[in-house]
C-alpha cells in the first residue's frame, strides 16, 4: 500500500502539494487526475524518490521513503515500472535492447532467460518479434507499448503510467486503456497508478480515483463516487465547462 501523509512540496512561493494525504490501495488501478499544473507529476516524482517533499511522509509497504538515502532510493525504485508520457525509449538502442535494459542492470539471469522474458512481455503488449527494430521505426502507439513492456519486464510491484493516452488518437487511447486493465488483471500482485487528466478514461478504467485540486485532494473514491458527486469542482472538471469555481491559467 502507498500512503501520502501531509506531504507538502513548494517551488519557491508556489505550493504544489499542500498537506496532501492520499491512500493508494494495493492490486488496483488508481487514477490520479486533475488539470494541468495541479501537481500530478510532482506527486509521482515524490513517490519515485526523484523529488523530495518539504515535509510529510510517503509510506510504501510500511517504509517511509523520505528517510532513504540516494543508494537506498535506487534499490527502492526497482519496485516500480514506469511508462513515460513519450515512452522515453533509448533511441540509440533497438527495441530488444531497450526492454532487456532493466534486466541487465538489476538481475544476474543468464542471457537466454532474459531474452525469453523480453519475448514474453513484448507478446503481452501485443508486439511479438519486433526486438530488432529501432524506436524511430515505430508508431507512437507502438512506442508506448514497448515502453510498457520495458516497465513490466522486471515484474515490478507498482506500475506507473504518466499521461499514457495524451496526444493519442481515440483508437490508440482505447487500446492503451485496455492494456492497463489487462495487465492489472493478468500480472499477479501489480498495482497500477495512472496520472491523467482524462476523467472519462478514469471512469471507464479505474477502480480508485484521486482528484487533485490546489495541491489537495478534491475527491477520492470509486468511479461511482465521482459520477454521483455534487462537488462543483469535480462536476466542472467532468463537464469540461469554463463556467465554475475552477480557474484557468
Amino acid at each position, binding site marked *: 500500500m502507498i500512503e501520502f501523509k501531509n506531504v507538502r512540496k513548494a517551488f519557491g512561493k508556489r505550493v504544489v502539494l499542500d498537506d496532501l494525504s492520499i491512500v493508494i490501495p494495493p492490486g488496483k488501478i488508481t487514477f490520479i487526475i486533475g488539470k494541468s499544473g495541479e501537481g500530478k507529476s510532482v506527486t509521482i516524482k515524490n513517490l519515485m524518490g*526523484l523529488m523530495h517533499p518539504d515535509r510529510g511522509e510517503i509510506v510504501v509497504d510500511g517504509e517511509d521513503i523520505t528517510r532513504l538515502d540516494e543508494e537506498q532510493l*535506487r534499490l*527502492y*525504485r*526497482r519496485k516500480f515500472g*514506469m511508462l*513515460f508520457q*513519450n515512452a522515453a525509449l533509448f*533511441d540509440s538502442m533497438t527495441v530488444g535492447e531497450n526492454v532487456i535494459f532493466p534486466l541487465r542492470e*538489476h538481475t544476474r539471469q543468464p542471457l537466454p532467460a532474459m531474452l525469453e522474458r523480453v519475448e514474453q512481455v513484448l507478446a503481452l503488449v501485443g508486439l511479438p518479434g519486433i526486438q530488432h527494430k529501432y524506436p524511430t521505426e515505430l508508431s507512437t502507439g507502438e512506442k508506448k507499448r514497448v515502453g510498457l513492456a520495458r516497465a513490466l519486464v522486471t515484474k515490478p510491484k507498482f506500475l506507473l503510467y504518466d499521461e499514457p493516452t495524451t496526444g493519442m488518437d481515440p483508437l490508440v487511447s482505447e487500446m492503451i486503456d485496455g492494456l492497463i486493465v489487462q495487465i492489472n488483471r493478468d500480472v499477479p500482485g501489480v498495482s497500477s497508478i495512472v496520472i491523467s487528466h482524462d476523467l472519462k478514461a478514469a471512469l471507464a478504467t479505474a477502480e480508485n480515483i484521486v482528484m487533485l485540486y490546489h495541491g489537495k485532494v478534491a475527491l477520492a473514491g470509486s468511479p461511482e463516487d465521482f459520477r454521483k458527486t455534487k462537488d462543483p469542482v469535480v462536476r466542472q472538471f467532468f463537464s469540461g465547462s469554463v463556467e465554475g469555481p475552477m480557474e484557468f491559467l
Partner: protein
Amino acid sequence: MPVRTAEIAVNWLGVEATARLVEIGKFFVYVGDVLKQSVRKPMRTSLVFQQLEFIGNQSLNIILLTGFFTGAVFGLQIGGIFQIFKAEGLMGAATAKALTRELAPLMTGFLISGRVGSAMTAELATMRVNEQIDAMEAMGVDPINYLVVPRFIASLAIIPLLCVVFIFIGVIGAYATGVWIFRVDVGIFIEKMTQIVNMTDIWNGLEKSAVFAVLMSLIACRYGLRASGGAKGVGIATTNSVVVSLLAILCFDVFLTYAQVKF
C-alpha cells in the same frame, strides 16, 4: 538617485555572484560524484570501448590532417625566421619543442572539444529533454555511472594518445617543409630535434592533454545532463559546453604552463 542605482547594482552583483558560487559548488559536487562512481561497480567496460572508438578512432582523421598542417605551417613560419640567421637546421627542433609542450595538447583539446565534446553534450541533452535520463533514474540506474563515467574514462585514456599522434604527424609536417622547402639536411633536422626535445617535454605535453581531457569530458557531460527546454535547450547546452570547455582549456593551460616552467 545615484545612491539608489548603486544599491541596485550592488544587489544585482551580489545575486549574480551568489548564483555563480552555487553553480561552482554544484560542479564540484558533480566532479566528486563522477570520481566516486569511476571506481564503483558495475564497471561498464563495453561502454568505455564504445567511447574509445568514438573519441579515438573517429577523431583520428581530423587529428592527422590538423597535426600535419599545423607542423607544416609552423615549420614554414619559423623556417623563414631561422633562414635570416642561417639557422634553418634548428627548425625541426623548434617545431617539435613547440608541438610537444604546447601546440599538440592545445590543438588536440580544441579539436576534441569541438568534435567530441559537442557530440557528448548534444547526445546527453537530447536524452534529458526526451525523458530518457529520467527513465534511467526511474529504473534505478545512475546516469552518472552509466553515461558520464564511460565518457570520462575513455577521454582520459585516449586523448593523450591522440596528442602523441598529433606530435608525431606534426613533426612529419615540419620535416616536409624543412627538407623540401628550406633544404635542411635530414641528418641535421633529426639530430637537432633529438638534442633539444627531451622526455620532460613530451611528459609535460601529455600532462596538459590529460587535464584537458578531464575538463572537456566533465564539462560536456555536465551541460548535457542539465539541459532543458526542448530542441532550443539542446542547442544552447551544446554551444555553452563548447565555449566553456575552450575557455577552461585556455585558462588551465596558463596555470599548467606556469607550473611546468617554474617547478
